[in-house]
C-alpha cells in the first residue's frame, strides 16, 4: 500500500473530510442539540479511519477510531457538553497533523489525547466502546435536549439500469417519509431531476421503526439496488452542485498543460501575424486553428478554476480559536465562497488573508467592555467576502472595530521623517504604504495605537506578486476594510500593447478602464502633479516615456492614453502608440535587484520579440 498515488489520494480526501469536520463542529457548537453534525462527523471520521487503516497508517486509524467511539456515545444519548466538543476540536487538530504527517511517517498523536477520548467515550455511565451501530441500541435515556427517536442515517442506491432514476428516487424517498421525519437530504431533491443524477442519495430519518422495516419500505418503491444504514452510508459530495462525475488530477499536470497551452497561444499569435492580410487558404486555416486554440485555452483555464470557498472554509475555525485566545467575542461571516479563481492564485491567498484576519481580530476589534462603552454590540464582527470585478476578483476583510488612528500614524511618520511635515491629511493610500513598512507598524503597535503588524506587508507583497493590489479603508470607530484584488488567472492574460520610444510594453486588460487621447487642453494640475480631465474626473498622468527613460526623438503630438483603474484609483498612462490587444503568457520573472516596481514580468510577443509587462497596481 506504499503506492504514492494512494498516499496522495489519502491526503487529498483526508483533508476534505477534516475540513468538513471543522465546519460540522462549528455548527454543532452553535446548536449542541442538533443531530446532523454528529452524524456528519461520525461519517467523516469513520471514512478517515477506513482509509488510514487501508494505508497502514495505524496511528491515524487508532485516533480516528477513538474519536468515533466518543461520537458513537454521543449519538447514543450522551449530552454534548462544551468540554466534549472542545475535545473533539482537539482531536480533529490532532488528526490533521497525523494525516499530514502520516505519509512521511511522522509522529503519533499524544497519549494524553487518546486517554481523554477514551475516558470521554466511556463516560460516567454505560461503557460503549467499539460497538458499531448494527442495531439501534437500547439506548441510554437520550439527553433532555434531544427528545424523541434519534433515527437513522439512510443511504439509498437506485439500480443503475433503471429508467428515470430521479423519479424512482423520489418514490423511495416518499416511502421513507411515510415512516418519519426526513432531514439532511443529500443531494437536495432538486438534484434528482438533473441529467447526471447517479441514483444515490442519503438522508436522516427520525423514526422509531426498525432498520429492517425501513429497508422494506424503501425497497417497495422498486428498482432499489441497495439500502445502507448509519456507519456504512457513503455520502455523496454535498451541496447543491450537480453531482457531476469527477476525477482527481495532479495539479502539476494541470500546470504543465497550462504552460503548453501558453506556448501554443504564443505560436498561434505568431502564425496569425505571419498570415495577416493573406487571403489564402492558409490564412483561413490559421484562423480556424486560432479559434480552436482559444477554446482549448479557456477550457484549460476553466479546469483550473477553484471556488474561493476552499480557502475561506478554514477561517471560521481560525476565528473561533482566535476569539478564545484573545478573550473576545467575534462573529465571523463569509460570503462569495462560490466565486472562482485560478488554483495557483488561490493557493497564494491563504497566507495574506490569514494575516489580515488575525490583525482584524487582534488589533481591529475592541474588547467587549470597550465596545459596549462605545455603544456597539459587544460581539465584534469580521467579514470575509469575494466579488467579481471586471477580470479580477476582490476579496475584502472587514471588521467593525475601532478603525486605524490616522492622527497617531501621521504624527509617528512625521517624527520618523517618513512623511513631510506639511502633510495634513493621511490618505488611505499613504496609510497603506506606511502600514506596509516593516519597522513602522510594529513601532506604532508598541506605542499602544492600533497598528497592524507584519500582516499588511505580507498581504501587499503577495498581491503585487500576483499582479494584484491591496487597498485599505478605515473609519474611526466604524472599522477597517482591506481589499485584496487579484486577477482571475495568472498564466495567460489579455493585454493591451503600447509603445514608448523603441520598446513595446504590455498592460494587462484587467486594469484598463478605457483609452483616450492625450489632449494638452485637458491638462490641469492636481496637487502640483500633471493631471488629465476625463469626463469631469481629474486623473493624474504618468508618461511612459519618462518612466522608462526612453531615448527620444520628439514625442508625437497626439498621444494615446490608457486609463488604468485599480479599485477606486485611476491613473492616465500616456504612451506613444497603441498596438492592439494580444493574449500574453506571463513568464516567470526572477526580478533582478533594483528592477523598477512598475514592471510586473516579461512576455514573448506574437512576432517573437520580448516585451515587458507593466504592473498597473504600482502605477496608480
Amino acid at each position: 500500500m506504499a503506492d504514492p498515488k494512494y498516499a496522495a489520494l489519502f491526503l487529498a480526501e483526508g483533508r476534505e473530510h477534516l475540513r468538513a469536520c471543522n465546519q460540522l463542529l462549528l455548527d454543532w457548537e452553535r446548536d449542541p442539540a442538533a443531530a446532523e453534525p454528529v452524524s456528519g462527523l461520525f461519517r467523516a471520521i469513520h471514512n478517515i479511519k477506513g482509509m488510514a487503516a487501508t494505508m497502514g497508517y495505524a496511528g491515524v486509524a487508532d485516533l480516528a477510531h477513538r474519536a468515533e467511539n466518543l461520537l458513537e456515545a454521543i449519538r447514543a444519548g450522551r449530552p454534548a457538553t462544551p468540554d466534549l466538543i472542545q475535545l473533539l476540536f482537539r482531536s480533529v487538530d490532532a488528526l490533521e497533523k497525523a494525516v499530514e504527517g502520516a505519509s512521511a511517517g511522522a509522529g503519533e498523536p499524544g497519549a494524553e489525547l487518546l486517554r481523554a477520548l477514551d475516558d470521554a467515550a466511556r463516560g460516567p455511565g454505560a461503557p460503549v466502546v467499539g460497538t458499531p451501530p448494527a442495531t439501534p441500541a437500547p439506548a441510554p435515556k437520550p439527553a433532555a435536549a434531544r427528545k424523541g427517536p434519534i433515527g437513522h442515517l439512510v443511504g439509498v442506491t437506485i439500480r443503475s439500469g433503471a429508467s428515470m432514476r430521479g423519479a424512482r428516487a423520489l418514490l423511495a424517498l416518499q416511502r421513507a417519509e411515510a415512516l418519519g421525519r426526513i432531514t439532511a437530504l443529500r443531494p437536495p431533491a432538486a438534484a434528482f431531476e438533473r441529467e447526471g443524477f447517479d441514483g444515490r442519495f442519503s438522508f436522516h430519518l427520525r423514526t422509531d421503526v426498525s432498520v429492517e422495516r425501513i429497508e422494506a419500505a424503501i425497497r417497495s418503491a422498486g428498482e432499489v439496488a441497495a439500502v445502507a444504514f448509519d456507519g456504512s452510508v457513503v455520502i455523496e459530495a454535498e451541496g447543491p452542485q450537480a453531482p457531476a462525475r469527477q476525477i482527481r488530477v495532479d495539479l502539476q499536470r494541470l500546470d504543465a498543460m497550462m504552460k503548453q497551452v501558453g506556448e501554443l497561444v504564443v505560436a498561434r499569435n505568431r502564425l496569425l501575424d505571419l498570415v495577416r492580410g493573406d487571403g489564402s487558404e492558409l490564412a483561413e486555416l490559421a484562423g480556424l486553428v486560432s479559434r480552436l486554440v482559444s477554446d482549448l485555452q479557456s477550457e484549460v483555464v476553466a479546469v483550473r478554476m477553484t471556488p474561493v470557498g476552499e480557502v475561506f472554509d478554514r477561517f471560521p475555525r481560525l476565528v473561533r480559536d482566535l476569539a478564545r485566545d484573545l478573550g473576545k467575542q467575534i462573529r465571523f461571516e463569509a460570503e462569495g465562497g462560490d466565486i472562482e479563481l485560478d488554483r495557483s492564485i488561490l493557493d497564494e491567498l491563504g497566507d495574506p488573508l490569514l494575516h489580515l484576519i488575525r490583525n482584524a481580530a487582534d488589533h481591529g476589534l475592541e474588547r467587549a467592555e470597550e465596545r459596549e462603552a462605545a455603544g456597539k454590540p459587544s460581539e465584534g464582527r469580521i467579514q470575509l467576502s469575494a466579488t467579481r470585478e471586471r477580470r479580477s476578483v476582490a476579496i475584502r476583510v472587514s471588521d467593525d472595530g475601532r478603525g486605524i488612528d490616522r492622527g497617531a500614524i501621521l504624527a509617528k511618520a512625521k517624527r520618523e521623517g517618513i512623511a513631510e511635515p506639511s502633510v495634513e491629511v493621511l490618505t488611505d493610500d499613504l496609510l497603506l504604504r506606511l502600514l506596509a513598512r516593516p519597522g513602522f507598524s510594529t513601532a506604532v503597535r508598541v506605542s499602544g495605537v492600533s497598528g497592524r503588524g507584519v500582516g499588511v506587508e505580507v498581504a501587499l507583497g503577495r498581491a503585487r506578486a500576483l499582479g494584484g493590489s491591496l487597498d485599505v479603508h478605515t473609519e474611526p470607530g466604524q472599522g477597517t476594510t482591506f481589499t485584496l484584488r487579484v486577477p482571475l488567472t495568472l498564466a495567460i492574460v489579455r493585454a493591451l500593447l503600447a509603445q514608448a520610444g523603441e520598446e513595446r510594453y504590455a498592460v494587462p486588460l484587467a486594469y484598463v478602464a478605457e483609452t483616450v487621447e492625450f489632449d494638452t487642453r485637458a491638462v490641469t494640475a492636481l496637487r502640483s502633479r500633471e493631471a488629465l480631465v476625463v469626463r469631469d474626473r481629474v486623473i493624474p498622468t504618468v508618461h511612459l516615456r519618462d518612466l522608462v527613460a526612453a531615448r527620444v526623438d520628439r514625442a508625437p503630438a497626439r498621444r494615446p492614453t490608457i486609463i488604468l483603474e485599480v479599485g477606486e484609483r485611476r491613473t492616465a498612462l500616456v504612451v506613444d502608440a497603441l498596438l492592439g490587444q494580444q493574449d500574453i503568457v506571463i513568464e516567470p520573472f526572477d526580478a533582478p535587484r533594483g528592477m523598477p516596481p512598475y514592471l510586473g514580468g516579461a512576455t514573448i510577443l506574437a512576432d517573437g520579440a520580448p516585451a515587458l509587462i507593466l504592473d498597473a497596481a504600482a502605477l496608480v
Partner: protein
Amino acid sequence: MSHTVLVCDDAIFMRTMISDILNQAGFEIVGEAESGLQAVQKYRELKPDLVTMDIVMPDMGGIEAVREICKQDPDAKILMCSAMGQQALVVEAIQAGAKDFVVKPFQPSRVLEAVQRVLG
C-alpha cells in the same frame, strides 16, 4: 377475485397493448379513457383497483387527472405511463399522488412488476 383496471391513454395502440398485458396476467379491464377528463369521470363511476395513466392527453392531461382523482380518493392507485425524457413530468405526477411509473417502450415484465408494487 381479480383486480379491476382503468386504462387511460389517448392512443388506441397503447390502450390495446396495456390491456393485453394486464388481461394475460389475469386483471380485469373495466374501462378505458382517452382523455384526462374521461379518466376522472370513469374513475368515479367504476372505482377500479388500479389506473394506468398516460401523461400527455387532450382535455386535461394525465397529471391534472391524477390530482383530481386523488382529491376524490387519496388512496387511488395510479401507475403513470411515460415516454422517455419526461422525468420532470413523472416527478410532478408522483408529487400529485401517482404511486409508481413505467417508461415506454413497455416490457410486459416491467409493467407487471410496477402493477404489483402499486397494488402491494
